[in-house]
């Protein structure tokens, strides 16, 4: 994750004489493969359990990925720029604790939500300042803040919990916009569109790619590297705050252990979506499909009564597998 690594080996590149047709390019893309796997899992699931193909149970299944995906979109941009944030789950804990404190102080739904979002933004700013102003490696900074943020939550709550959130708050995590379409699902779709446009259609998005590919070159071509990274950390913090609002609303309570281990699932989602962990490449559609795929796998295994911890084996294997298999294949082809 270090910037401007002088030891980066120049990678020999094969530039083809002629580009493939756009259709062929899409068919051969990582996203197409993911989509194929997702469809396969969907079909397998519908055979494996008679309860799967039901509008309401599918609607429930979306909760498996909507909150994580909100963070994953921002995390994707952050990882493409060559940084990482491992503190996102701890930001959720701290933001949720702040929401609880505001509730205890008698704040209404609006204030509670504002507290969650503001805490997320503040945590993101803290990470961002340490990384961009002091020039510290983001992986260590966020391992540190991962302990710090959750630690603050433990200091406030100890082994207790906040309960009794106002009914108005339940709308975010338990509400339906129309029929089986949940509020979280709508937020997910809107954010997917927003981040897709931001990364693929704006100047800012191109700058993110440029920084991830070569921060020094990006700097010398006039990109304000530190500012872009700061914005990305702020975004990741804000999205974690939003996820905290949704999760707290859905669970109806706050414990300091809330969302523990979620950073792993978010990073897995991003990497599974085809974002290079070394930065510089990846796409939002990939992350969207990866989110749905992970939700389907989790839900399908849940229907088969596979315990959560065993599911984490699948997630761990998926994380390593998606990177290992293409590299293994390339190795075998060369040999």
């Amino acid at each position, binding site marked *: 994750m*270090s*910037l*401007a690594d002088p*030891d980066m*080996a120049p990678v020999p590149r094969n530039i083809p004489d002629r580009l493939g047709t756009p259709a062929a390019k899409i068919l051969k893309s990582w996203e197409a493969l993911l989509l194929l796997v997702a469809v396969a899992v969907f079909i397998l699931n519908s055979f494996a359990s008679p309860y799967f193909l039901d509008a309401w149970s599918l609607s429930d299944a979306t909760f498996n990925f909507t909150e994580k995906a909100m963070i994953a979109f921002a995390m994707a941009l952050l990882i493409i720029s060559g940084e*990482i944030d491992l503190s996102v789950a701890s930001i959720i804990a701290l933001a949720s604790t702040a929401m609880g404190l505001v509730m205890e102080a008698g704040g209404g739904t609006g204030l509670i939500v504002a507290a969650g979002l503001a805490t997320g933004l503040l945590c993101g700013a803290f990470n961002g300042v*340490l990384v961009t102003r*002091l*020039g*510290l*490696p983001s*992986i*260590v*900074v966020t*391992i*540190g*803040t*991962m*302990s*710090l*943020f*959750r*630690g*603050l939550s*433990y*200091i406030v709550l*100890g*082994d207790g919990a906040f309960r009794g959130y106002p009914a108005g708050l339940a709308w975010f995590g338990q509400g339906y916009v129309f029929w089986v379409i949940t509020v979280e699902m709508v937020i997910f779709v809107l954010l997917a569109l927003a981040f897709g446009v931001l990364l693929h259609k704006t100047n800012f998005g191109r700058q993110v790619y440029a920084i991830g590919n070569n*921060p*020094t070159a990006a*700097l*010398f071509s006039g990109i*304000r*590297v*530190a500012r872009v990274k700061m914005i990305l950390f702020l975004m990741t913090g804000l999205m974690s705050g939003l996820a905290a609002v949704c999760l707290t609303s859905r669970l109806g309570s706050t414990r*300091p252990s809330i969302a523990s*281990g979620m950073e*792993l699932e978010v*990073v*897995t989602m991003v*990497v599974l979506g085809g974002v290079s*962990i*070394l930065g510089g490449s990846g796409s939002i559609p990939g992350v969207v499909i990866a989110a749905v795929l992970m939700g389907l796998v989790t839900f399908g295994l849940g229907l088969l009564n596979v*315990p959560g*911890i*065993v599911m*984490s*084996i699948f*997630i*761990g*294997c998926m*994380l*390593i597998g998606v*990177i*290992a298999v293409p*590299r*293994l294949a390339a*190795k075998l082809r060369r040999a």
Partner: protein
Amino acid sequence: MSILKHRETLLVAVIAALLALIASRFPGFVAPQNLVSVFTDTAPLMILALGQMAVILTRCIDLSVAANLALTGMVVALLNTVAPGLPVAVTILLAIGLGALMGAVNGLLVWKLEIPSIVVTLGTMTIFRGIIFLISDGQWVNAHEMSASFTGFPRLTLLGLPLLAWIAIAAIAAMALNMSRTTLGRSIFAAGSNPHAAAYTGIDVGRTQCAAFVISGALAGLTGYLWIARYAVAYVDIAGGFELDVVAACVIGGVSIAGGVGTVAGAVLGALFLGVIKNALPVVDVSPFWQLAISGAAILIAVAFNARAGRAKGRVILKSAEHAA
């Protein structure tokens, strides 16, 4: 400023000041007997930090150490319930072997497939934890199911120190010898300082990284047995999140996450610093819930120090560029 350049001296001073501060209110804390128990309590962290240091020196990171520890611990605990008569020496060798095997899985993925270590070990961390659940069926192995020799071993005392402390001292000595006097130790430094230069001098960087992971895994396996035997209980979530303490100990000890910089003494002192804080909190009547936040803050302060000490001394041509990057 010169004292700041020696992280070890600084840490010794900080730990001494911390002890003096606590002693001024609670003299009992610095009684030899209590200091021995603090040292013994910190032994697992020190042993793990030694392995983590080797891995970080080669520009990698091992987040799977705590899961490795828990899985090895569960395996030897289950083995003990089936075969209580197994000599402790065999158990320890098995634990080290199993740990090394798991380290080798990490190492091979990093070496042969060149997957970033953070991805590999985040993955194996959850996989190892999941396997514990599968082999134990989610059940606990409790004290009464373990044999007396199994749980008693780390507590046996020799010259006033428990064996657990002696094992930590032996591990520190072995690691110090390895890092300074063997080809492997020197190539670990070389591979981390400048992988390209290392490759030109005939060091296989990937293989060295793999070796570091095996060392880290073996030490985690050893700690797995010691941990389970000491607390006389084994379950899925044992030592959950402990990998962060281990990384924290290294960072506090001045091991640079960018690789190539770090000492055995630094890692050990970093672990001791955290150990003293952890043991002092209940004495000075601060809720143990503060510990997580304190170690987080300690990591951040330490890494800021590291960056200051390690800043390149080359001539700065483009000052603003240097600042922004």
